[in-house]
């Protein structure tokens, strides 16, 4: 491979990895830290994309549309936690699977009733529409580079909040042992609602920010759910750092797999997961 194209493929891999991290980041919070098996993660992603499509059209501004969509998504997460998830903490994982699977059906159907079944597109915001010339016939959209930057920011912010702030300490304490945390004066009820709402908002945010380079269509969340779990599991359940490195590894493996071993590209990611789990059964950076 020509060195220029090799470097471009590295860029592609890193950029895809960062996007994967963003897509999986909400799941890191809800599944990784809270321990709720949230199959509806993809549905939240889908909700974000459709909301930003609708609001951006209403306000004629992507940024305003995203703000409105973010608020609504967080509120949706909060309501779902308060009314549904809250009864599940003390119950088996299987109950969580059934409930969150039900949420997928309900949210997909609501989407169809509210917005219809057509495929939609969200235009890239004007300010970042340009592209950089890489080779004589290949350019790289500025929006994609910006996306990579935002994903990095989200990763750093999540890491700092969870590892370095009092709030993060509460979250970790409550994840480790809910009863003890409550006895120590942490308001576990509000904390859970907050973390779930943040996780939902992050999943929806990923859908929003990916909407301009993707397309918006019914059931779009169903395709990201598996890869999101792969990222969280490879990284080690509950570890932001692990999810970040896991996502980058998957992005690079997938990109080079497609170029060098196209016949095997569809399962290369899962082979990587199997290899990581054989080597470290709890993932790269599992919580002790």
């Amino acid at each position, binding site marked *: 491979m020509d060195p220029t194209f090799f470097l471009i493929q590295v860029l592609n891999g890193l950029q895809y990895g960062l996007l994967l991290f963003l897509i999986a980041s909400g799941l890191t919070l809800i599944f990784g830290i809270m321990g709720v098996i949230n199959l509806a993660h993809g549905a939240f992603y889908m909700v974000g994309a459709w909301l930003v499509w609708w609001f951006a059209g209403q306000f004629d501004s992507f940024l305003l549309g995203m703000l409105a969509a973010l608020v609504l998504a967080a509120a949706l997460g909060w309501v779902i936690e308060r009314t549904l998830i809250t009864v599940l903490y003390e119950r088996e994982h299987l109950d969580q699977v059934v409930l969150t699977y039900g949420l997928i059906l309900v949210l997909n159907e609501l989407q169809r009733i509210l917005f219809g079944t057509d*495929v*939609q597109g969200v235009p890239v915001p004007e300010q970042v529409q340009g592209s950089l010339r890489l080779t004589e016939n290949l350019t790289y959209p500025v929006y994609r580079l910006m996306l990579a930057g935002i994903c990095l920011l989200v990763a750093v912010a999540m890491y700092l909040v969870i590892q370095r702030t009092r709030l993060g300490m509460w979250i970790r304490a409550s994840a480790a042992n809910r009863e003890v945390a409550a006895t120590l004066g942490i308001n576990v009820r509000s904390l859970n609602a907050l973390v779930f709402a943040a996780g939902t908002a992050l999943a929806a945010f990923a859908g929003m920010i990916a909407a301009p380079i993707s397309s918006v269509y019914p059931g779009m969340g169903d395709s990201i759910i598996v890869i999101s779990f792969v990222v969280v599991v490879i990284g080690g359940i509950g570890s932001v750092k692990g999810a970040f490195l896991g996502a980058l590894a998957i992005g690079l493996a997938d990109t080079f797999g497609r170029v060098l071993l196209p016949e095997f590209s569809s399962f290369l990611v899962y082979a990587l997961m199997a290899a990581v789990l054989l080597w470290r059964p709890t993932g790269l950076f599992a919580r002790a």
Partner: protein
Amino acid sequence: MYRFKTVMKRRTAVKATLAFGLGLAAAGALPSASSAAEQVKVGLMLPYSGTYAALGEAITNGFALALEESGGALAGRDIEIVRLDDESDPGKAVSNANRLIKGENVDLLVGTVHSGVAMGMVKAARDSNTLMIIPNAGAGPATGAMCAPNIFRTSFTNWQPAYPMGDVAYDRGYRNVVTMTWKYGAGEEAVGGFKEAFTKRGGNIVKEIYVPFPNVEWQAELTEIASLKPDAVFVFFAGGGAVKFVKDYAAAGLKDSVPLLGSGFLTDGTLHAQGDAAEGVLTTLHYSEELDTPQNTAFQAAYQQKFGKAADVYAVQGYDAAKLFEVGLAAVDGDISRRDEMIEAMRAAKLDSPRGEISFSKAQNVVQDIYLREVRNGKNAVVGVAAEALADPAPGCRM
């Protein structure tokens, strides 16, 4: 008059309840009390949920429009329509088809969009010798190796719209072409059609790229295309993937240096979402909303009036499915027990479709003109006819 009835399944029942809870009536779900004996029963097994729901709806609309044009009855027989959501799930295809064939005793089975599901239906229709019309799924074997006298197709084979693009590409002076599609039946058959025509003329396929279905991340492949510097790229994508591919292709700056060619589904029902990125993309298909013929203008106007939107290619295919059935019914004065005569008449049918004149091949797949279209100002403008009265070669069909 024709009536709609929906076969309830557990999931549909949940959906209907949900819709009621929100104070919305489930569209078209009007359960009938008992079926009158004199009615002809048609089972529409189509996707009414999921990714292909819009296609299922368009086909149903087209079928309903054709019925309405003839006063709700075909050849003097009232029609009762039974709808079943196939969920685009091949695993349930045979059992769902049998619910209509054995449970509802339909006289005609119409379906579907997803090729895997359609093949399951073909199997069920063959086993029970039920008359069947395929209004979309392009899987070659349905009117190829699996062809049967009771199975018709009013849509296309995946080969059909792609093959003429091979000639178009060569005639435009392209000699080295990269092809790209999802690794699944429809994509492989379409690329096969293009390749057959293009290499027959002396063109060279530089590389065939396949991405796993339904993956829509292809930055790596676009980079590879840039490094290969072909004269043009031929692709088969549809729906959300088509929107994303056309946008990514333009954003990568490839559109200006390497022309993008495709089977028409690349730019059908997706142009509003693709925006400027689709301008100039060349596709071949058996229809365009822009066709300037009296038949199409009248069809579009009627569809617009009834459903409040423009008819797409799927609506036309559904419309022609009803028209083909009407030819069969008319030939026997509505007496469906004279099945062989009905089939004979349908085989010989010549329909004045909104897409132009169509007839049927020995394998009972539609024979039709394939148009060359270019995206101009957000529309699929018809540039010319890429192939006249093109019939699928139907490999493996012994009939």
